[in-house]
């Protein structure tokens, strides 16, 4: 087991109370697995990424355990997590490519980052060059300023930096959103290649774009309003989902080959609940076409078939 | 209605803000003195009331008298009025010009913006002292209004700059495009869509302009470039220095006006900071 998350609960502190952004996440990630984490805005996917890497106020750790390669991660302790960041787990945050300091050369940025992890840049230089070859960036990029690079180049640079120390787990948060189609494909393929060459053991790829996940992920975890809905292999999620939310979500996605005139798709009526005071039990209850009385209790995230986990009373009922 | 709620939310924070309360109180006290004072004064500012010349404060002359026996209190309250007038007119003119030029440059962009920018920079760079000296050389008699106009005409650039910048950023928002698609005329868009978003800044800018104009006027008066008629706090200090009040120890001649100017302008700036905290929640020390 590469990553194990048990009953992770992380809330946001606000003046009006706690926003229950992540309420009971339990899942595992195997070595070599690329898991896509998908959901709509407010589902908690970025909160999950932050909880694993940067749990600081206003985020508040409530309960739960995270284990990576058999070692428990002290996620609630920011300073102790320093030893793990970049070396054991690494994150590419949203908009990372826009966060490069415009007044510093790329080479300087990398050197400073490595120094903060107590790694001298010179010893890693050869490895750095090898990685640059891998992502097809010229070596002289180290002497350039961020403003001289295109979006795709910056994103690839960020990927190189984040994986330089061969972390076991890489979390990529919306790294393909702001790119054009060709670069998006290249970046996605590079992620897979990093895994194939064992530079990174496993990955969590966070995005709202399910079709990209279909192309690169082995499994997909769907979240809704801070709770996990379903986790299964990519094929299963796309072709044979079981959770009502997943079913409605997948069927609302337009794809080439589907025309309004021939096949009118429909969305999901209603809106996501506010997480300041969410409804008890399954949070999808109000919008679910098959909700029944038991749904007022939180459904457990159970394995209904091998490798297929669902949090739904209806589904676990029919399975049982 | 969120708008009144937001209004009352502002009021709530405004009333609790220490700086705002203190600053506003000081200014209002002086304003009251300026309004009521002249009717309380027993003498006119320039009358040679005291045949004994300069005398320290007493029961008869609350602020003492000058070398010429003029009632310092009378001069003070009349001067205070003049100071407020200059502040209002000069500051008002400066704000008006800044708003006009800022909105026009920010909304129209392009060539208009370039030209107005150049104008702003020129006015910013003009050495106001030098221009004033030239003007004083030509105008034998200058009144308070002339001084106010001069101050107004030279103090608008920073307001214009700030408003231009904010207008630029608001203009690129899509609701402005939609307003255009609704057939709204440009001036209507500026005043009905863009300006309301900047009300807090406009208020702060006008307060700062008022304070700045007052200080400017006092400075000009003090060095002798002020009005040739009438009395103001700065003129009082000018006279005091000219007639050796500092050397002879006639503190009651220059301390009241100096203190008043300092307190008024200081209070205005403090009010400004307080208002900024009210409008900008991130600055509140909660």
């Amino acid at each position: 087991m590469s990553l194990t998350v048990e009953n992770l609960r992380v809330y946001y502190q606000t003046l009006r109370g706690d926003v229950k952004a992540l309420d009971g996440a339990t899942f595992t990630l195997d070595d070599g697995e690329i898991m896509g984490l998908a959901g709509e805005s407010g589902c908690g996917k970025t909160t999950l990424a932050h909880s694993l890497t940067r749990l600081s106020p206003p985020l508040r750790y409530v309960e739960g355990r995270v284990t990576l390669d058999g070692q428990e991660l002290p996620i609630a302790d920011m300073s102790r997590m320093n030893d793990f960041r970049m070396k054991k787990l690494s994150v590419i945050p949203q908009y990372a490519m826009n966060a490069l300091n415009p007044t510093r050369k790329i080479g300087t940025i990398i050197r400073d980052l490595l120094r903060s992890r107590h790694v001298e840049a010179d010893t890693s230089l050869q490895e750095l060059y090898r990685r640059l070859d891998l992502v097809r960036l010229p070596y002289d990029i180290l002497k350039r300023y961020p403003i001289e690079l295109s979006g795709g180049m910056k994103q690839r640079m960020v990927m190189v930096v984040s994986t330089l120390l061969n972390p076991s787990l890489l979390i990529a948060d919306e790294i393909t959103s702001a790119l054009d189609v060709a670069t998006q494909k290249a970046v996605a393929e590079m992620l897979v290649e990093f895994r194939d060459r064992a530079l990174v053991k496993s990955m969590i790829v966070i995005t709202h774009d399910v079709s990209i996940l279909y192309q690169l992920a082995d499994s997909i975890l769907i979240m809704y309003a801070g709770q996990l809905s379903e986790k299964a292999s990519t094929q299963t999620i796309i072709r044979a989902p079981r959770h009502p939310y997943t079913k409605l979500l997948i069927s609302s996605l337009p794809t080439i080959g589907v025309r309004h005139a021939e096949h009118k798709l429909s969305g999901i009526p209603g809106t996501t609940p506010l997480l300041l005071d969410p409804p008890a039990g399954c949070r999808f209850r109000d919008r679910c076409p098959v909700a029944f009385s038991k749904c007022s209790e939180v459904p457990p995230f159970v394995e209904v078939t091998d490798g297929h986990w669902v949090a739904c009373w209806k589904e676990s009922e029919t399975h049982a | 209605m969120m708008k009144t709620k937001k209004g009352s939310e502002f009021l709530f924070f405004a009333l609790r803000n220490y700086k705002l309360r203190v600053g506003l109180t000081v200014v209002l006290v002086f304003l009251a003195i300026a309004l009521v004072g002249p009717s309380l004064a027993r003498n006119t500012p320039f009358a040679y009331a005291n045949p004994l010349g300069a005398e320290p404060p007493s029961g008869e002359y609350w602020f003492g008298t000058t070398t010429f026996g003029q009632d310092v209190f009378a001069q003070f309250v009349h001067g205070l009025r003049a100071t407020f007038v200059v502040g209002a007119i000069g500051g008002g003119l400066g704000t008006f010009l800044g708003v006009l030029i800022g909105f026009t440059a920010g909304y129209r962009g392009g060539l208009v913006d370039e030209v107005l920018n150049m104008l702003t920079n020129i006015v910013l760079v003009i050495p106001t002292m030098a221009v004033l000296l030239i003007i004083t050389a030509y105008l034998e008699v200058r009144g308070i209004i002339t001084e106010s106009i001069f101050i107004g005409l030279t103090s608008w650039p920073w307001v214009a700059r700030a408003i231009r910048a904010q207008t630029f950023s608001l203009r690129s928002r899509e609701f402005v495009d939609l307003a255009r698609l609704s057939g709204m005329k440009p001036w209507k868009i500026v005043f009905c869509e863009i300006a309301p978003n900047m009300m807090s800044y406009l208020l702060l800018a006008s307060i700062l302009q008022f304070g700045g104009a007052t200080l400017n006027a006092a400075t000009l008066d003090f060095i002798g470039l002020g009005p040739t008629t009438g009395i103001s706090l700065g003129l009082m200090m000018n006279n005091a220095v000219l007639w050796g009040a500092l050397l002879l120890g006639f503190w009651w001649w220059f301390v009241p006006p100096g203190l008043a100017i300092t307190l008024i302008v200081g209070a205005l700036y403090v009010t400004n900071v307080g208002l900024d905290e009210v409008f900008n929640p991130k600055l509140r020390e909660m």
Partner: protein
Amino acid sequence: MLSLDGVSKVYNVGTFGGKQLRAVRDVSFDVRDGEAVSLIGESGSGKTTIGKMILRLLSVGSGTISIDGVSIATLRGSGLKEYYRKVQGVFQDPFSSFNPIFKADRMFEVLRQEFYPEASEKEWEEKVHESLRCVGLNPEHVLHKFPHQLSGGQLQRFLIARACLLEIDLLVADEIISMLDASTRIDVLNVLADLKSGGLSLLFITHDLSLAYYISERAVILQRGRVVEMGLTERVFRNPLHPYTRMLMASVPRLDKRWEDTDYGAGEIGRPSELAGSTAEEALADERHTLTQAEPGHFVATSG
């Protein structure tokens, strides 16, 4: 209905306007009555510039844009206002499209003042409610609320309702659902499709090929300001001829096929011209192109 003929737009950029940026080059296409045409391109393709020119938010550079045969380039004042009764737009960011300090329905008030000043209270209320129902919104749920109290999907539909109210002929929709959640996107898209079957012409500007396929009859593919391919959506998507279109079709992530299974032969990235602001691609786009008909209803740009 809408016709573009040889439309170009050049910006002067750089200090003192030294350099020139050709945002749109010689674009020609049309939108017929009751038809939806997708204008497809990535960032920098000029699609938003074209949309803004059609809406007269930008001046028409060169060439002609005409509605029902009448050129719009010289419209001003009341002529322009009349134009806005026929053509309206909806934009990408629902929260930026509303003035945050006013309630969302103030927008209807503005329309009333500008376009229907003599309407009575009762009449107006009816009209507003009708247009809200037209887009699937319940008047009781969305009126008298501030923008931040409504969701992105509701706000976008509000803006479409605005178009319904004016009874326009053409709607320019510029990336209107890219900022919405997946489950609400399709609802807004369906609203557009329903309006289209009611007779509204639609210019659907997007970078997302699957949306274009879903809603439009014809598609125009733009690359760096130039039309590289256009025609019936079916034909262009199933049989892309231009290298750029083929690259798009091969690179777009789909839910029915994996990238390995597509057979369009994507181009390599890591082109030498990848650095920002390169001149190589500029030169490439400057070559003279003409549109030739490859098959009925399908045109491709060829060099020469």
